[in-house]
């Protein structure tokens, strides 16, 4: 372990020296590179906001499960939506409000279903990026879900729709741009009923902004549900603990089954 810590400190020092040199040259921070020359997105990252509760501006509200007391209350959050509000079609706004009214029964994530993109990004748990020249692999701690972003298959299509969708990436300058298509219509954007149809298309942008931060942006297009495309953005932060690692959050036995099958347990009130 001593050897390991020393190696970490040495590489950290080296990184500082390299950054200092880069800054000295042109005054602007430049992202470190992987061996193949692309910005290095490797690491364990996490959003630090309450977008997973509600993408739009919201003040704090009571938990619907009083047993948790104040610990279960939903924290306030500023809107992460550019322009503040999601541009719903009229019928869809009504649908969103109905979803919200029956949130605990309807939110697919309550059942531990795969959150889809972009929601997986800002679930309140970290994810790890393993970046290669051909693919950027996203490993999400929440639910243990996986998503490969393919850099080497431009123009290909998904074989089938899926919960995480089909992700094709390319570099635009220092930004990883990911086009996500073919997601099933069953996922939500947050725990406040914000939803989409099978026509959903998401374009994500990942840009390093500093040694321990990244800018995340996702533009959402779905002509069935929205009047125009809309964009969310937020910073992502590196987990800085010396021993940071993805842990296990298998949410099926952690409440997912209660939400999915609680009504079918022995002794439960029949449907």
């Amino acid at each position, binding site marked *: *372990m001593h050897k*390991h810590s020393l*190696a970490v400190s040495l590489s950290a020092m080296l990184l500082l020296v390299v950054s200092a040199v880069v800054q000295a040259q042109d005054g602007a921070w430049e992202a470190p590179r*992987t*061996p*193949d020359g692309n910005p290095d997105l*490797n690491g364990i990252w996490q959003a630090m906001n309450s977008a997973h509760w509600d993408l739009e501006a919201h003040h704090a509200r009571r938990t619907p499960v009083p047993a948790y007391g104040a610990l279960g209350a939903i924290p306030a959050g500023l809107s992460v939506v550019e322009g503040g509000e999601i541009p719903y079609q009229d019928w869809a706004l009504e649908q969103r409000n109905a979803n919200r009214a029956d949130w605990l029964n309807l939110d*697919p994530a309550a*059942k*531990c*279903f*795969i959150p889809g993109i972009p929601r997986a990004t800002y679930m309140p748990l970290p994810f*790890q990026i*393993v*970046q*290669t020249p051909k*693919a950027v*692999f996203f*490993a999400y701690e929440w639910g*243990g*879900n*996986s998503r*490969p972003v393919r850099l080497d298959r431009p123009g290909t299509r998904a*074989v*089938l729709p*899926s*919960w*995480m969708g089909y992700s094709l990436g390319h570099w635009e300058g220092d930004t990883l741009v990911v086009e996500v298509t073919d997601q099933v219509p*069953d996922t939500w954007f947050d725990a406040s009923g914000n939803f989409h149809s099978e026509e959903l298309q998401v374009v994500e942008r990942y840009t390093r902004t500093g040694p321990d931060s990244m800018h995340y942006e996702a533009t959402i297009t779905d002509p069935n549900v929205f009047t125009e495309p809309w964009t969310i953005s937020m910073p992502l932060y590196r987990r800085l603990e010396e*021993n940071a*690692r*993805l*842990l*296990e959050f*298998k949410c*099926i*036995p952690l409440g*997912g*089954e209660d939400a*999915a*099958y609680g009504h*079918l*347990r*022995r*002794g439960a009130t*029949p449907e």
Partner: protein
Amino acid sequence: MKHRLSASTVTFVAAVLVVTGAAYAEDEKLVTSWGVPDLQGTWDYRSITPLERPAAFGDKATLTAEEAAELEEQRRQQRAARAASGVQDVDPSQGDVDVGYNSFWLDLGDKVSGTMRTSLIVDPPNGRLPKMTDGAIRRANERYALWGQPPAGPEERNSYERCIVGFNAGPPVTPGAYNNMMEIFQSRGYVAIMTEMINDHRVIPTDGREHVDESMRFWKGDSSGVWDGDTFVVTTKNYTEHTAYRGTGPNLVLTERFTRTGPDALLYEYTVDDPESFEAPWTSAIEMRRTDDPVLEYACHEGNRAMTLMLRGARHREQQGTAEDGKDWLASWYGGQNRVDAAQEALEAAKEEQDQQDP
């Protein structure tokens, strides 16, 4: 665990190189840009080689090319005969559709492992699982007895049916009925393994870091890896009490060895060391083949209609007043009514013995 690698495993690795003939020449070896072996690609671990050596093979450890071809041809003919029999994949005499997998689902391939062994188990040398401990047998019997009953809730079914872990996704990774694919991604300091089965992953550090505290228990255990020459050696421990691979318990220490043995071949070996469950460690090996097939998302839990139907069926039987008759709940999937009966009898016998000793 390295020091416990048995002599037979070492011999075995040498044997593979001889059998496959095409040794992986030093100048052909794929390495990453930072200088470690490149294990990346999508790996197919379908195999008709059984875990344990069938009795018919006796002392025979390896297959000749002719014998392998014959086994593969037999398997193809069995499959063809089954397919030709129409939709009756399910034995109607079971009076149930509890083995709901027809040939659409089954995707075990039709090739023996490139290791050319008569079994996946290479140690002990007889190719058979070592004896299970009394504790492990009791645990297994308790599970079988439970699975023979209508479930009160999802907790009474196993972790595979609950989609918490994949039955072939590991660790250890083992050939199973379907979804026998995994993809490896590498970045400096990490090897990530994505399994098609249940869309799961492990991101394994390569710095041999200490495992998480003993008190932390994971369904998939906690994996830590280190490079040993051309081989990535991964140790996994801290399993939950519910994680059971072939009857293992929470204190299993699993050692996996990943070695690329050619552009399209990955030798995967694992050693199960769990003195609480098996009287000796045992080691299994398979040669995975590289494939260009896409890994698809297997959304197991999201599509788990089976759990809903099982629970609904159980509640229905309770309403009908027939729940108590049933020791026959999905019995055949787990080895049949006989296995459940045997488990229940063994548990009753043990209880009687205990009562006699401890009146």
